[in-house]
Structures are given as C-alpha cells and as structure tokens.
C-alpha cells in the first residue's frame, strides 16, 4: 500500500502532455497527444477512402459500415434536428465533428495510445470552431443587427432588457466552454479511473493473501467492465458533441422567428 501514492503520481504524469522530441520547429513540437491526433486523422481518412472506394447500391464489407455510420449521422442527427434541407447542408460540418471525436476517443482506448481529445487545447479549439460557425450561420441568415436583437425576446419589459441581454451573452459564451470541458473531462477522468483500477490490481499482486486476492479480483473485473463502458462513453461523447452542435445551429437559424 505504501507505493500507491507514487503509482498515482506516475499515472498522472503518464497522462500529462509531454513533447516526444526535444527538437522544436518554431514554437511547435509533436507531443504524445498530438501524435495520436495525427494517427486518428490518418485512420479516419483511410477508413472513409477504403469504405467509399466501390460505391454500389448494396454495399459490402467495410463499405456497409461506412454507409451505416454516415446515414446514422446524416439522418439520425442532422435531418432529424435541422430538417431535410438544412440537415443536408450542414451535415459535412456535423459529420466531421462526430467522426473526429469518435475516432480519437476510440483510439485512446488502445493500451499505450492517448486520446487526441484528452487535452483541453484540442477540445477548446473545437468548441471555438462550433461557436464561430453557429454564430456565423445566425448572422448570415438574419443579419448582424437582427441576430443580436434576437437575444432579447420580443415583449420583454424595457427595464429587464439589459439583464436579459447580458444573460444571453453569458450563456452563449458558456457553450464552447462546456463543449470543450465536457469532452476533455470525460476522456481524462475515464482514463484516470481505468488507471486506478489497474493500480489496485498491481498492488494486490504484491502480497499473497485471501484479502488481496479478493480485492485484486474485484478490481480486475471492474477494470474490464469499465473498459467496456469507456467504449460506450466514446460513442456517447461523439453523439452529444455533434447533437449539441446541431441544436446550436438550429437555434441560430431560427433565432429571429419568434
């Protein structure tokens, strides 16, 4: 039990961002996280290129998987939330987010690999992109002045207007923040939890007694269950990130209608 603290420290160190090489190109360097970001990027491109190589009415093999995944995002997410026309229009953006998050989350579950979405830098960048895109859509749709005016619902007493406006601004700026924090925290906390169970198993192996065998066995079973659960979380986070994006886009599109 004495070295548990040391092991936890080691785990946290393992999960922190570290440069892979001491060489820098300007201020840029390849870290352990950005390395797996690149790998996930290559995997995504290869997956979709192979899947869409021979397009046919009845797809076979990997083409079938790609078609199912794409139609899930397009029909289940975009068209369901945004309607047929806007759903098709914004599907490339939402689909990119969905598969980016999904591939990075799942890749991070391979032992030794890191989730590219496990750093605040990556997730906040996506939050900021979503923020810029949905506000851009709203401004393009109804014009800057009308879009800003729509922050205050019509019929609000004049006294309450500044307060309502301020609240709406705060809630808009909280959106990219929560998008980023949610994804980061889920990935980071999930990996810490897996690591803690792994540490428990290692510690119980050190001494041979009935108690440590029971503890280690339970920790091992929990570790396996939690590992499966993390796959569910990976899919869920991809789904939540992209469905919230469609909700924000939908809100911006229909901001001035009521």
């Amino acid at each position, binding site marked *: 039990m004495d070295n548990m603290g040391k092991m936890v420290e080691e785990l946290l160190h393992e999960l922190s961002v570290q440069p892979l090489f001491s060489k820098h190109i300007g201020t840029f360097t390849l870290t352990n996280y950005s390395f797996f970001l690149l790998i996930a990027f290559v995997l995504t491109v290869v997956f979709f290129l192979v899947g869409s190589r021979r397009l046919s009415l009845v797809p076979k093999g990997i083409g079938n998987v790609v078609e199912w995944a794409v139609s899930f995002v397009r029909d289940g997410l975009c068209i369901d939330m945004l309607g047929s026309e806007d759903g098709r229009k914004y599907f490339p953006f939402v689909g990119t987010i969905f598969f980016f998050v999904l591939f990075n989350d799942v890749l991070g579950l391979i032992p030794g690999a890191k989730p590219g979405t496990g750093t605040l830098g990556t997730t906040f960048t996506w939050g900021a992109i979503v923020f810029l895109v949905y506000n851009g859509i709203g401004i393009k749709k109804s014009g800057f002045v009308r879009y800003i005016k729509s922050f205050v619902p019509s019929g609000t007493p004049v006294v309450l207007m500044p307060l309502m406006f301020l609240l709406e601004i705060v809630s808009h700026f909280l959106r990219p923040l929560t998008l980023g924090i*949610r994804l980061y925290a889920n990935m980071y*906390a999930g990996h810490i939890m897996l690591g803690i169970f792994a540490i428990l198993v290692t510690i119980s192996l050190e001494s041979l007694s009935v108690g440590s065998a029971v503890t280690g066995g339970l920790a091992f079973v929990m570790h396996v269950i939690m590992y499966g659960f993390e796959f569910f979380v990976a899919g869920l986070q991809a*789904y939540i990130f992209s469905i*919230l994006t469609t909700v924000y886009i939908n809100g911006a599109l229909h901001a001035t209608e009521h």
Partner: protein
Amino acid sequence: MVGSLSVLGAGLAFGIGAIGPAIGIGMIGAKTIESMARQPEMAGKLQATMFIALGMTEAIALLGFVLAFVLMGA
C-alpha cells in the same frame, strides 16, 4: 497546510457540486423512461432530447470538476 487544505477544498468542490447534477440526471432518466413507456412510438425523439438535457446538466457538474483542478493548483 495551505496545500492540503486546497486539496480538501478541491474534493469538496467536486463532491458537493456533483449532488445537484446527479439529482438532475436521475430525474431526466426517470422522466424519459416514463414518457417512453407511455408513448413508445416517440422513443427516438425522446432519446435525442434526453441526451441534450443530459449534456446540459452534465456541464454543471463538470464546472465543479474544473474548479477542483483550479483549487488543486492554487
């Protein structure tokens, strides 16, 4: 002393901060199941709305998570 107190504060910030969202997520789940049992044909739409509400409730808990890290650093 300050270091150990800030760790204690971080634990309390996340622990107490998670109570409200936990109740909220439970209520969201319970009500969704209830509505699904009443109108099974609406299940797909209810599930999508449930995930949106879940995401927003979860965000409050995660603010506590971040606050805990800020306190640990202090």
